[in-house]
């Protein structure tokens, strides 16, 4: 028995050395790319294939939030524009710089950093590699380098729309807002939502609380429970993982919640009536189109809003929101785009107008 075992081990050893040998050999020649589809062949005749890649933040690529949305945008660019796309996941904060470098060495035409946490790392990489194009989601610089694009979203516009829905649908006249952290990015959600509620229902009261965390679901749940006890029947959150607790509370108490960033209806199909969506995928696709057309908006901060499909309400809204309210929402949306309704994104603008 022992002999057999040993013989087996030795065979495995031999195989391993053989594998290593082969590895060295094949390493020399470039790995054959996947069979190009017909369209890609046509395109390749005209121009070299463009490569685009992204570094996720610590959430990973299947985070059901903006990393996943960003990867969807990449895949769309692959399918419709013939880009070659890839991603690297960051397991720790310290990985950002390293992963950006990995993608730099892989010869990408455009490298995306997903999330404002990567702001410093992108700025530094762009400074060291002035010939490489970078783009970042949710971050803007005072002085954007020529090889970087900052992408922002008018979250206040989507928040206004869900605020409008909340204002129309509340039965108690009280709705709630749970913010992640008290700083400008979240203020857009906060005051946009409040303005939307007041626009729909001037008598409605909005309860507001910040959780001081984007990751503390337990705290989100506690805050939402408290709001429901105080009589609120719809709570909107802009708090990332903390918001999962808000939705959890809505499900347990059988109240309504409003999701954020992605369509979060699947988290609680009977309770999440709509979501203020940030279409990271659309934004990435549009920048990819610009890149392909040769007018990469380097050195600028690009802001996506309702007008260009960069933000909006979730497609599943029609499950809970009555059709007539959705029609009104469409009208409000048109008015926002036309500039007839002013949507505030900070306290001063809100106080001055509502």
């Amino acid at each position, binding site marked *: 028995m022992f002999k057999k075992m040993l013989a087996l081990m030795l065979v495995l050893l031999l195989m*391993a050395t053989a594998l290593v040998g082969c590895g060295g050999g*094949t390493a020399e020649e470039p790995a054959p790319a996947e069979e190009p589809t017909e369209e890609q062949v046509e395109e390749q005749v005209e121009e070299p294939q463009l490569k685009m890649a992204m570094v996720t933040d610590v959430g990973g690529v299947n985070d059901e939030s903006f990393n996943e949305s960003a990867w969807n945008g990449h895949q769309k660019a692959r399918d419709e524009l013939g880009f070659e796309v890839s*991603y690297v996941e960051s*397991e720790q904060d310290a990985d950002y710089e390293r992963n950006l*470098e990995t993608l730099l060495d*892989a010869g990408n035409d455009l490298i995306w950093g997903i999330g404002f946490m990567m702001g410093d790392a992108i700025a530094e990489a762009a400074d060291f590699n002035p010939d490489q194009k970078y783009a970042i989601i949710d971050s803007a610089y005072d002085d954007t380098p020529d090889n970087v694009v900052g992408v922002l979203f008018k979250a206040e516009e989507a928040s206004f729309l869900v605020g409008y829905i909340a204002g129309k649908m509340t039965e108690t006249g009280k709705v709630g807002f749970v913010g992640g952290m008290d700083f400008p990015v979240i203020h857009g959600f906060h005051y946009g939502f409040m303005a939307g509620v007041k626009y729909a229902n001037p008598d409605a009261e909005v309860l507001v609380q910040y959780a001081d965390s984007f990751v503390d679901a337990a705290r989100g749940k506690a805050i939402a429970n408290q709001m429901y006890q105080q009589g609120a029947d719809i709570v909107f959150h802009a708090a990332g993982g903390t918001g999962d607790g808000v939705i959890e509370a809505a499900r347990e108490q059988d109240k309504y919640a409003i999701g954020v960033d992605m369509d979060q209806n699947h988290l609680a199909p009977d309770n999440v009536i709509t979501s203020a969506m940030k279409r990271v995928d659309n934004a990435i696709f549009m920048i990819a189109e610009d890149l392909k057309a040769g007018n990469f908006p380097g050195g600028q901060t690009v802001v996506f809003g309702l007008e260009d499909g960069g933000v909006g309400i979730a497609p599943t809204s029609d499950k809970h929101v009555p059709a007539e309210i959705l029609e009104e929402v469409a009208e409000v949306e048109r008015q926002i785009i036309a500039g007839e309704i002013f949507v505030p994104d900070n306290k001063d603008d809100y106080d001055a107008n509502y």
Partner: protein
Amino acid sequence: MKSKAFFEKIATYITKWTFGFSIISIILGFIIGAATLALAGFNPIEAYGIMARGVLTRPSYVAWTIIGSTPIILTALSVAFAFKTGLFNIGAEGQFMIGAITAAMVGYFVELPAIIHIPLVLISAIVAAGLWGGIAGVLKAKFGVHEVISTIMLNWIALYLNNYIVLLEGLRRATSQRTHEIQRSASIVILEQWKRSPEGREWLRGHDFFGDALRTPLNWGFIIAIIFAVIVWYILNKTTLGYELKAVGYNRHAAEYGGINVSKSMFTSMVIAGGLAGAAGGLHVMGISKSIASLAAMEGYGFNGIAVALIGGNASIGIVFAGLLFSALQYGGSKIQPALGAPSEVINIMIGTIVFFIAMPKLIKYSLQNFKKKRGAKNVR
């Protein structure tokens, strides 16, 4: 019959030679890892080729591997030190965070010349994390609270303490979830100022090797980690303290009977283990991150340290190599996705499989010896 003697010779040779098992398990790990990749429909040879090239072919790649190994070598030393003294330190993760928090605060608030500032930051990180580890030691020694439970709980406390401190007014950088960067004088990055200056950049552009290596945040952390590895080896093997601690680890009742103060030993051991993990956190802040951020979940430096300690057989020298191997797997693994298009889950399963097999030379040793015994028994019959 000749072949039988030959096989037996090899078998005894391998069973006698400790490193033999490690090497067999590494090879086995890679073979099984290849099988998982092949199962998922990707070419394992290509993937290993990408990993090997992604780790070895440029000075910057090697530098990243070394940088990545620094914290896990130290947390592994922490785990191994406690393990040798009969304690299972799951708390390296939390001790790492306490070290990082302390380093970020001392590095930011204190202004001193680098020659004093660097040691001050490192020592504060070690002391703070040592005391943090000591809490678990006291709980175990005085109240019999099992260190696995208490260190796991202390990890969570450290995580939330971290998130609380990051948001404190005066420490937090405006509109971000990070603290301010530490002073330049507390940085241990090699030639940091110079390589950012115009002259530095000019010179580095002309020198491929250094230019490439220094584009990473290469720092002195690795050297310091090696020094700590030597110190740990020395304490455990050459001092009375180490003897006492190990004696408690082997059999606390016998040690007590032999006149060793068991409670004190447990406390000391946890303090030293905590200090080692704290050094990892401190060096991480001084060399790589420069600040601490609000964390969604534990980052895994301490938990990876447990794996590295197991791979390295809880011995200093083994841990240094295991740390490098682990870091190379992690770094090389991150290169596979962009090049091969394999989903990161598949790559993580592959790396997990490799680590799983590498971490169990004991099992292979055991099964080999067991087979030998059985065979012997058969012959007797």
